[in-house]
């Protein structure tokens, strides 16, 4: 295992690592947070003190070994410390998505037998109090930010400061308690429980051990030579395995510093100020950044715009090759690229806050080839990796210098991969989880007799041994004619257009493929503005004839691409419609990680699917929507159904 090979780590749990850092690099920054406009730094020594007070406080309140601690809020140092505090006592932190509505939290709070919760602010406290009747086990609610809570007198509420005060007194009475508790921790204890997004069925609690978390963090740290001098920005939901690995576990393994943005709206500015050296984001974040850059470039002066387009063309031609160390790039091109770097790429990297990024990762879903090469051509070493919550994101990574946009690279050293007949990817990895909480049946389902973990993803190796993922095994279907149908593959092709935000493709067991499309309000809105097209909102804009035409163009382009694919040429889209509302996790149409729930959508919008296949020119529909504050409203529209040209299969292209 990686941790043994490197020999650097003696500590085998996260809290032990914390004590080690406090002793070895006590004055180094561990975590920063922007407060009142100034970055406030906590050193490893201070962190150890904070965690100690908190852990003792929790113990004094009756938190025991094996108990679960719910953690809900934005990325705040105090919430990260709460994770460590729980782990110090041998408990298990259970981070929840902070934007979930109260009703969605009931399931997890119930399933996780949660008695303690540490939450960020009034918003989350209100949710906890709302679900009290459904979750009577929840006895202690600790809040970080007291704003607006002055008149809350519920006995189960306690402020973070008060809890730490209780802890300090407890610590005085039991001075060796904290160290003793940490010493008791074993590497195969559960370090964290993360609930899967529940694309299918109810969410399941994935229990990761200290060993799997540390192994995974160590493997990536070794690959990229991460050290205490690295810096990252932590802004992704704490309930996501990516954040737990990259901004928590890895910080404890390597000792690098983590920076929490002021609020979710200031991430762009905070990122520029911090200048992270190591960056992790799902594709949609990269996509949003690119969209913003493109929109702002459209508004720039003519000279700037010309320069941008000229040098971006240069970058597109040679940028990625230079980054990969390709020797075939000529001197003239290198000079031109250097010039572009001075005028365009470096300033652009600075605006994006990526001037200092040594390595950037993306994962979670497929990234568009254009998007991917845009960042690489700018000189940002963006790489894809492949993993899941169950494997603590440790399966495949694109190695430096051998990055191909459509694969996820070869297995990480120490990971074994096997493919089944049906193309399912099976793995053995040191990052593997222990079990699903209270679900031995589900655990048994994903592990076979030889201990292989079934990922549920379908894929294959290309000639260089890089893994290519096409879809979920269960989603790969057959069309009525017998041709292969991989909906996600087609959806991703659609979503790679900046005007298309979300797409849902249907065709399993049918003669033809059809699609629902969500337009990207920002990109299409901007496009409409520049054409002096008046619109009142999403629903109106989506049904404008010229917008339908714009999207038709995109779909035709996808069809042209698909016609060249030997296996999937039958998946060309024959008809599509633009949905009257944006798909939203609040309406259960997407998971909290914004994955499409195809089955649910197919059921909810059955009328529309029937209309797509009956060849009607339009269909009227009314839909209930849920607003952020829990109220509901009605959206109705007459939706146009658009036929698209399809192309004869041209197998010669390959």
């Amino acid at each position: 295992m990686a941790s043994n090979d490197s020999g650097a780590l003696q500590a085998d749990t996260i809290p032990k690592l914390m004590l080690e850092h406090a002793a070895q690099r006590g004055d180094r920054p561990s975590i920063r947070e922007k407060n009142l406009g100034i970055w406030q730094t906590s050193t490893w020594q201070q962190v150890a003190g904070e965690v100690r007070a908190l852990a003792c406080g929790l113990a004094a309140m009756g938190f025991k070994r094996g108990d679960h601690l719910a953690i809900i809020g934005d990325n705040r140092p105090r919430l990260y410390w709460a994770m460590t505090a729980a782990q110090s006592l041998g408990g298990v932190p259970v981070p929840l998505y902070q934007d979930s509505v109260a009703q969605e939290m009931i399931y997890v709070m119930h399933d996780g037998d949660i008695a303690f919760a540490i939450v960020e602010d009034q918003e989350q406290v209100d949710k906890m109090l709302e679900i009290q009747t459904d979750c009577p086990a929840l006895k202690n609610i600790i809040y970080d930010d007291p704003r607006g809570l002055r008149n809350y007198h519920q006995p189960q509420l306690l402020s973070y400061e008060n809890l730490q005060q209780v802890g300090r007194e407890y610590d005085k009475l039991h001075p060796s308690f904290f160290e003793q508790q940490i010493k008791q921790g074993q590497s195969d204890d559960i370090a964290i429980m993360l609930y899967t997004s529940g694309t299918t069925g109810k969410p399941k609690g994935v229990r990761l051990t200290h060993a799997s978390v540390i192994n995974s963090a160590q493997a990536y740290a070794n690959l990229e030579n991460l050290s205490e001098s690295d810096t990252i920005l932590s802004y992704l939901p704490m309930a996501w395995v990516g954040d737990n690995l990259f901004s928590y576990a890895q910080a404890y393994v390597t000792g690098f510093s983590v920076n929490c943005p002021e609020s979710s709206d200031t991430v762009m500015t905070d990122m520029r100020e911090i200048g992270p050296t190591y960056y992790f984001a799902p594709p949609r974040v990269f996509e949003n950044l690119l969209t913003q850059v493109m929109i702002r470039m459209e508004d720039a002066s003519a000279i700037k715009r010309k320069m941008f387009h000229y040098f971006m063309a240069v970058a597109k031609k040679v940028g990625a090759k230079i980054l990969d160390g390709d020797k075939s790039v000529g001197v003239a091109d290198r000079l031109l690229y250097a010039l572009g770097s001075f005028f365009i790429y470096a300033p652009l990297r600075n605006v994006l806050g990526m001037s200092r990024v040594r390595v950037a990762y993306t994962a979670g879903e497929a990234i568009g080839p254009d998007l991917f090469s845009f960042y690489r051509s700018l000189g940002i070493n963006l790489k894809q990796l492949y993993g899941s919550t169950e494997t603590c994101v440790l399966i495949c990574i694109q190695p430096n210098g051998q990055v191909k946009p459509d694969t996820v690279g070869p297995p990480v050293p120490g990971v074994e991969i096997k493919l089944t007949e049906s193309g399912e990817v099976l793995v053995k990895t040191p990052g593997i989880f222990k079990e699903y909480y209270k679900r031995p049946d589900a655990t048994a389902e994903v592990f076979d007799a030889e201990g292989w973990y079934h990922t549920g993803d379908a894929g294959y190796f290309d000639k260089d041994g890089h893994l290519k993922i096409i879809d979920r095994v269960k989603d790969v279907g057959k069309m009525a004619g017998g041709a292969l149908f991989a909906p996600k593959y087609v959806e991703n092709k659609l979503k790679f257009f900046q005007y298309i935000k979300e797409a849902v493709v249907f065709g399993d067991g049918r003669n033809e493929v059809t699609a629902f499309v969500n337009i990207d309000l920002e990109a299409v809105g901007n496009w409409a503005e520049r054409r002096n097209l008046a619109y009142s909102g999403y629903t109106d804009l989506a049904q404008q004839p010229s917008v339908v035409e714009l999207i038709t163009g995109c779909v035709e382009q996808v069809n042209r691409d698909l016609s060249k694919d030997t296996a999937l040429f039958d998946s060309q889209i024959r008809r599509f419609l633009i949905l009257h509302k944006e798909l939203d996790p609040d309406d259960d149409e997407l998971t909290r990680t914004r994955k499409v729930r195809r089955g649910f959508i197919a059921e909810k919008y059955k009328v529309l699917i029937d209309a797509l296949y009956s060849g009607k020119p339009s269909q009227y529909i009314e839909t209930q929507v849920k607003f952020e504050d829990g109220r509901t409203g009605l959206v109705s529209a007459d939706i146009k159904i658009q036929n698209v040209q399809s192309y004869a299969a041209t197998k010669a292209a390959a």
Partner: protein
Amino acid sequence: MSQTQRNIGDVVLALNNISLSFGGVHALSDISFDVRKHEIRAIIGPNGAGKSSMLNVINGVYTPQKGNIVFNGNTRAQMKPHEAAVQGIARTFQSLALFKGMSVLDNIMTGRNLKMKTNIFQQAIRWGAAEREEIEHREKVEQIIEFLEIQQYRKTQVGRLPYGLQKRVDLGRALAMEPSLLLLDEPMAGMNVEEKQDMSRFVLDVNDEYGTTIVLIEHDMGVVMDISDRVVVLDYGKKIGDGSPQEVRNDPAVISAYLGVQH
């Protein structure tokens, strides 16, 4: 939100028999009402009822021909706006009066002007006392920025912000004075529902956290009924109602002024 648990105190501001006219136009005639410490007091009425004139009388822009004002126990007939400011009365404006070319931070900083002790020359050199003072004031301003959740606009020019946010900056500048009495002139005019909800929350939070007494003019009845403790109703410069939102809502005189009378 539990309004009942707040400690509403003694009368801090009393207006006695105020009459104000411009030539032959009687803007206000013989109006009396009081404001208690820590309460949210709303002034409502149809257009031209004299609501803004009332606020202008309170903070000394207009001097009433008749009547007097008792603020914190001091009786006065007239006072200049800057004197009102020194005494702790701050206000926001119906039509925004922000410095559009300046950043959000600088705009709110201007609200601290009265509290600054160093003179212009010290500030120009920005050394010693002036620097210490700026740091101190900046901290207060940052607290307000956090309170109003406008961190991401800190360095943005105010003129480039949407209207709803400009209103928030206007409130921020008034708060920077750390007023004991805050006058809000239609803080929610021209806002959409979400912006109104945000603003209502800020008004309630200001009242709750800083203990500021608030007098506000508002047209949106829903907002007034939800957040205010007591309401004064004006019509054509006369007071036609005064009491809790519930009482005012059921007052026949108020209903007829707002909804018209059946003939």
